């Protein structure tokens, strides 16, 4: 296994977080909390794990990432820009008229986006079709889907989870961004999802629990998932909503609120400046 440059990954994740803050600030609306919590996971996927080519987004046999919690579009946009799918300047046009960066991901507008999402549960279901297609065509590319912990309250998620277990989709890895919060409060107060590990296991999944901000653990989990046969893998990643910006961390209020100019400045300073 190649030696991992953790310092580099950390810097990339910080750049992605800055992109999230800048783009949402420029848009005047958007979802920072659930974007920041997923930044380290997307960093590992796009800069360590996945076979993708920004110069050839439709490359045959590429690995595919599905942002099922589509409201976290800013983290995906910032990651794709960082990877070189499009210019970072685009980020400042987030949610503007005529921009390719829609409020929720649009596969027809943005290179590198595999399926349009925004309606919770939906992208994960589509990833089942992608994984089945890869199996049917005897391809060895992998499918990755990121879900929110509020999102898994959707019935569709469990329809898809059941199908993935039934069809033994070992080319599918799901990641649960378990930040413990949704819009109206903590998951446990709104509608508890626990016991979450047992739920996925009972649906026929191999489950790994990690700290979603620890690069070593994230990498190990993705590597491990590739070795699991006849089962899809769920990585339950314990995260912090708003991670990286002190005043946003673990604050339900920052789910869908845009930072104003001075807040954005403060956040960027914490992240090491522009």
């Amino acid at each position, binding site marked *: 296994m190649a030696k991992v440059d953790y310092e580099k990954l950390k810097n990339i994740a910080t750049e992605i977080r800055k992109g999230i803050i800048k783009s949402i600030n420029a848009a005047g609306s958007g979802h920072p909390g659930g974007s920041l919590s997923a930044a380290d996971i997307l960093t590992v996927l796009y800069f360590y794990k996945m076979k993708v080519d920004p110069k050839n987004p439709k490359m045959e046999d590429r690995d595919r990432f599905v942002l099922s919690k589509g409201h976290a579009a800013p983290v995906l946009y910032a990651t794709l820009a960082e990877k070189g799918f499009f210019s970072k300047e685009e980020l400042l046009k987030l949610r503007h008229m005529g921009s390719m960066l829609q409020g929720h991901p*649009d*596969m*027809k507008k943005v290179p590198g986006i*595999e*399926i*349009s999402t*925004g*309606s919770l*549960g*939906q992208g*994960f*279901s*589509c*990833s*089942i*079709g*992608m*994984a*089945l*297609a*890869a199996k*049917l*065509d005897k391809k060895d590319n992998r499918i990755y889907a990121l879900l929110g912990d509020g999102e898994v309250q959707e*019935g*569709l998620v469990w*329809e*898809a989870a*059941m*199908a993935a277990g*039934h*069809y033994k989709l070992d080319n599918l890895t799901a990641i649960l961004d378990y930040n413990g919060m949704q819009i109206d409060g903590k998951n446990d107060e709104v509608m508890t999802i626990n016991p979450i590990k047992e739920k996925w296991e009972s649906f026929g999944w191999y489950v790994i629990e990690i700290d979603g901000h620890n690069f070593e653990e994230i990498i190990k989990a993705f590597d491990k998932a590739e070795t699991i046969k006849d089962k899809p893998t769920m990585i339950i990643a314990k995260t912090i909503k708003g991670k990286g910006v002190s005043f946003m961390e673990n604050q339900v209020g920052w789910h869908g609120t845009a930072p104003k100019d001075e807040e954005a400045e403060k956040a960027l300073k914490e992240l090491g400046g522009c």
Partner: protein
Amino acid sequence: MSEKIATREAYGKALVDLGKVNEKVVVLDADLSKSTKTATFKKEFPNRFFNMGIAEQNLMGTAAGFATCGKISFASTFAMFASGRAFEIIRNSICYSNLNVKVCATHAGITVGEDGASHQALEDLAIMRAIPNMVVLNPADAVSAKKAVFAMAEYDGPVYSRFGRAAVPVIYDEDMEFEIGKGIEVKEGKDVTIIATGIMVAEALEARELLLKEGIKARVIDIHTIKPIDEEIIIKAAKETGAIVTAEEHNIIGGLGSAVAEVLTENKPVPMKRIGTKDTFGESGKPNELMEKYGLTAAHIAEAVKEVINKK
């Protein structure tokens, strides 16, 4: 018009024929493959058939995922659950991204019969018609149903097609041409036009016979594509015959009647009457009893024709 075949039977057979010539075709079902007739495809091509269980939303999401990988997905369940339970997934996962998924919905309309109102989709055409990018088909008989399946596969994008449970008369020859978006003038006539869709085309033809006995010559048009609708054939009929009756096995709100009315009001308003269920749920019964009770027979169409002619 002697032989009777259900359009779902034709659908199942056509899928097998299509599967033989097109390797990209995958078929998905939600535990109804014996009823939707996709079981025939499953038997022939087990590795390209996917039973998703009783999970209609995931059926559509999975079909969308397949389509992003270059497959042509045929996803089947009853019309009620396709257009109802899975509506939002069809809208957001399939239509928004213009994906190559064919939603093939069987057991549509009142002729589902004994299962009753919970299974009689009478609003599916309206719901599907309102989604951007969605093409909406409703073939009239077994021959056009088979042609519709091949036309759908040729067309790159989302299509909803309705198929029926009950056996209905075969009205077309094997060499009929089915072009998405093009209506068919099945019978000529100058006094009035009956524009029908699905199994109501056969009723319209019967109505025409009844009317001929009274000296009224009705043109009969089969609108197998509810969307995009063939405006040209409708406007021409309005100009040449001056009165229109629409006939559909669907609520009079939102389906064929509404679509035709939209075309006429903007182009050539003429007296018009809609035959369909009158904004009501159905009930259990034999298909022919229900057709009678809910006002969907040839006699009802003939009555409506006389009304509109009087308003000319």
